[in-house]
């Protein structure tokens, strides 16, 4: 859908900072999240998890657990269906293991009981006979031909023969003559990098309440980024029909991609079917860290050539990602994103995914991109240092722009990278003085953004207000932005619009809340639905005025005659039209269904000053500024909020957060005390600069903004720390012990 020619118009609602509609409930404690509802007769579910990194499940004896008073159902993997489709099958097996436990924390059985404490006692009575198998948790180890095999026969056809069976994905992107490119370089740097897996770290653990009858009809209330995704996964795992499951998304306490899959809902449904009662499951933080989320862990080699005046002549990367115990395609996005910020004559990225005995990777904000871009931006920074060049000037000289053949294939349309870099260069932060042990780093960031399948219904209420029904859980204020776009298009005040999120039985299919797609795609569909409703209102008014439909226009929330030839009818307001809808043909609504494309890629630039304590290896973030192209910032507060939140998650990834596995393959830091996410006292103010380079694919020029901001921090901080410490850091996180070791040699 094209950008409006009238985009230069003065927006009345879009771009203002209105109050979000779900705000009062959220500041008063009334908002209902996943764990906040209960049902009469409800049972409490609890899941038994494997203590082994890799083990064959020889047998499971549930008889003692079943005998415990208060226990109403016990289920194992045998109680779930075996979907033929690999993706559904992986989800089902991840919810309850079948033949093997694939990682420390893999679910093997579950109980439902009349109280939490009985459920807790009951899982201890389940006897699982494990045959412990050799395990592998490191991606480089997992790729070796003699590595323990996590799953057999899962490699895609693209993987060459003779590799470890753990290697499931191979991909390659790029163009141009690498050899010729490197021959033109005055300086070539080749570096290897490693990054630890990190968790999305949403504060609300997964929670659901589910009810399923033996007639196959069921209801689920859960915190998720996509109720339709939950429906599909549950239907496949339970062997029931989608039409018979109604999934309602609760308020969601953070997701960041981590709630784009299903972990507990099929288990709760299976328990409910067996017990004949609703079952609630709430994960503990330990379970969340062991068995949901994390992002990929990576090992990467990057080689870049540069002329002495800063022109990049060639770039090459090999990425080895592990998405845990299942096949995973995140490396494809990393390989595509790695060099996206640059206009290159010769570029190649090769990606591999290897399975390890770790939990199933779940997308985390711009999945695959932060690590790949971290490695590339680190090498670019080191080249600038070696050649004595300004890192911003070098990026400007090589920046991708409109017409650039991107490193992953498509030719870019209007993009905001150059404007974003120029804004960073002009900002006082870039030239502020630095003290001893301090360093400044910068990095570009990129994300594709996504559109996807979207349904919106927009109802004109009889009192002249507007109801929008959409199907994407609101993860950071999207109900406000959707209402704003509806109000803008209808010409009514924001307060006259209410947007609600439908359950799966009340609206057609919607893709999950991911890919920074909601404000773009749901917004686009809302605008189209509004236009459909307006068209219908104009048609009704034309009938009343007895003139041609084309002779009625919509302006400022009113139908008006298009010109003098259409007569001198006084304008009819939306409320007046709505009040007599019953007499002009019945209720008035607009709807739109689309698989939206044209999401418009997004670029950001982050500037960061750090101070390194040479005695402890601790890093302090002194100053941090985020520059990002938002296309059009519908609600600037929440755009800034995405930029700040993403930056801080990236700071955590760069400095502290990591999955630490012992020799035994067990996760050693499954709690917020040891898996340390940034706290308020770790951080300075996060300054933001929003740029608005309209996306040609949206009527208001909107681009997704949610994911790009987690991409640049890894390299921005690594570059700042490397410059401050005088040693190039090539492994994340740069935790104090690791940095101290690098400083002291």
């Amino acid at each position, binding site marked *: 859908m094209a950008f409006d020619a009238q985009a230069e118009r003065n927006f009345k609602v879009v771009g203002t900072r209105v109050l*979000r509609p779900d705000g009062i409930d959220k*500041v008063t404690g009334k908002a209902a999240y996943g*764990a906040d509802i209960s049902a009469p007769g409800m049972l409490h579910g609890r899941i038994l998890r494997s203590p082994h990194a890799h083990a064959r499940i020889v047998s499971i004896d549930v008889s003692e657990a079943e005998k415990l008073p208060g226990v109403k159902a016990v289920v194992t993997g045998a109680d779930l269906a075996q979907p033929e489709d690999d993706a559904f099958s992986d989800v089902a097996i991840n919810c309850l293991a079948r033949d093997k436990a694939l990682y420390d924390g893999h679910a093997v059985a579950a109980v439902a009981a009349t109280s939490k*404490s009985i459920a807790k006692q009951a899982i201890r009575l389940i006897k699982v006979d494990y045959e412990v198998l050799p395990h592998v948790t490191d991606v480089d180890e997992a790729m070796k031909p003699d590595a323990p095999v996590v799953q057999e026969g899962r490699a895609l056809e693209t993987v060459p023969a003779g590799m470890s069976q753990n290697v499931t994905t191979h991909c390659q992107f790029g163009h141009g003559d690498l050899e010729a490119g490197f021959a033109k370089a005055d300086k070539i740097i080749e570096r290897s990098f490693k990054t630890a897996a990190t968790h999305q*770290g949403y504060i609300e653990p997964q929670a659901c309440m589910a009810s399923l009858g033996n007639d196959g009809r069921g209801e689920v209330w859960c915190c998720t980024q996509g109720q339709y995704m939950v429906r599909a996964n549950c239907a496949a795992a339970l062997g029931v029909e989608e039409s018979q499951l109604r999934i309602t998304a609760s308020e969601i306490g953070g997701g960041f991609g981590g709630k784009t899959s299903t972990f507990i809902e099929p288990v709760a449904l299976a328990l409910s079917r067996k017990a004949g009662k609703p079952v609630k499951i709430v994960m503990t933080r330990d379970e969340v860290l062991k068995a949901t989320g994390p992002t990929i862990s990576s090992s990467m080699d990057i080689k870049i050539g540069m002329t002495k005046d800063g022109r990049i002549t060639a770039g090459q990367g090999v990425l080895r990602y592990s998405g845990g115990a299942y096949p995973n395609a995140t490396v494809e996005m990393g390989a595509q994103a790695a060099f996206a910020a640059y206009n290159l004559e010769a570029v190649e990225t090769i990606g591999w995914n290897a399975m390890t005995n770790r939990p199933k990777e779940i997308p985390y904000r711009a999945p695959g991109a932060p690590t790949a871009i971290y490695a590339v931006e680190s090498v670019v920074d080191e080249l600038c240092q070696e050649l004595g060049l300004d890192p911003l000037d070098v990026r400007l000289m090589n920046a991708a722009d409109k017409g650039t053949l991107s490193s992953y294939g498509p030719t870019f349309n209007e993009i905001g990278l150059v404007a974003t870099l120029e804004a960073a260069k002009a900002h006082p932060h870039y030239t502020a003085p630095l003290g001893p042990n301090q360093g400044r780093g910068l990095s570009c960031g990129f994300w594709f953004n996504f559109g996807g399948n979207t349904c919106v219904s927009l109802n004109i209420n009889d009192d002249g207000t507007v109801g929008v029904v959409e199907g994407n859980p609101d993860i950071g204020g999207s109900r406000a932005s959707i209402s704003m776009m509806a109000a803008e298009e209808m010409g009514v005040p924001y307060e006259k619009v209410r947007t609600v999120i439908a359950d799966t039985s009340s609206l057609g299919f919607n893709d999950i809340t991911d890919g920074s797609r909601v404000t773009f795609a749901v917004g686009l569909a809302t605008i189209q639905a509004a236009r459909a409703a307006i068209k219908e209102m104009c048609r009704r008014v034309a009938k009343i005025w007895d003139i041609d439909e084309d002779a009625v226009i919509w302006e400022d929330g009113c139908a008006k005659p298009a010109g003098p030839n259409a007569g001198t009818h006084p304008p009819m307001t939306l409320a007046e039209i709505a009040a007599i809808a019953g007499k002009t043909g019945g209720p008035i609504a607009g709807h739109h269904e689309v698989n939206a494309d044209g999401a418009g890629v997004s670029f950001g630039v982050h500037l960061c000053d750090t101070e390194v304590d040479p005695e402890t290896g601790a890093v302090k973030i002194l100053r941090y500024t985020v520059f990002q192209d938002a296309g059009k910032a519908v609600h600037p507060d929440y755009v800034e909020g995405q930029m700040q*939140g993403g930056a801080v998650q990236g700071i955590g990834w760069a400095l502290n957060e990591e999955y630490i596995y012992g020799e035994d393959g067990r996760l050693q830091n499954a709690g*917020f*005390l040891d898996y340390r996410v940034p*706290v308020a006292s770790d951080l300075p103010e996060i300054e933001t600069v929003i740029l608005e380079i309209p996306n040609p694919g949206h009527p208001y020029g909107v681009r997704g903004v949610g994911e790009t901001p987690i991409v640049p921090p890894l390299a921005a901080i690594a570059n700042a720390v490397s410059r401050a410490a005088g040693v190039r850091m090539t492994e994340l996180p740069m935790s104090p012990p690791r940095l101290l070791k690098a400083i002291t040699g």
Partner: protein
Amino acid sequence: MKTIPVETTINGDSTEFLCNADESLLDVLRDRLGLTGAKEGCGTGDCGACSVMMNGRLVCSCLVLGVETQGAEIETIEGMAKGEELHPLQRVFLEEAALQCGVCTPGILIAAKALLEKNPDPTDTEVRYWLAGNLCRCTGYDKIIKAVQTAAAEMRSA
């Protein structure tokens, strides 16, 4: 397990409940009293989402046993607004977009109120250290710190 009767005052109302000896105050509030504003983010006192006031002291309700609240005064997020009128912190959090998903918000509001009762004019650093026990994964804390300061200024001039 035999339940134990406990008498407390919650948000100014005298409240009696029965609970097991091993039940946390958080579980009592959420499961027995229907006060689900306090959230369980970790159950180990690391995230602050379950913050409530107990006898004027900021506590993680996941680390307090229900039976320990015998005779205590408890304040939760449900008691923060007076009828329709939001507490200045609640209103400013809303006006300044200091929340995204909102699940940490009740705990942060309770903690921020406790700070301002102790120290009506904190520095940014003092706000940041006071709130270091409350994890927020959405906002990067920036707008939270600013909102606390706006509310503090408003409360000082009131």
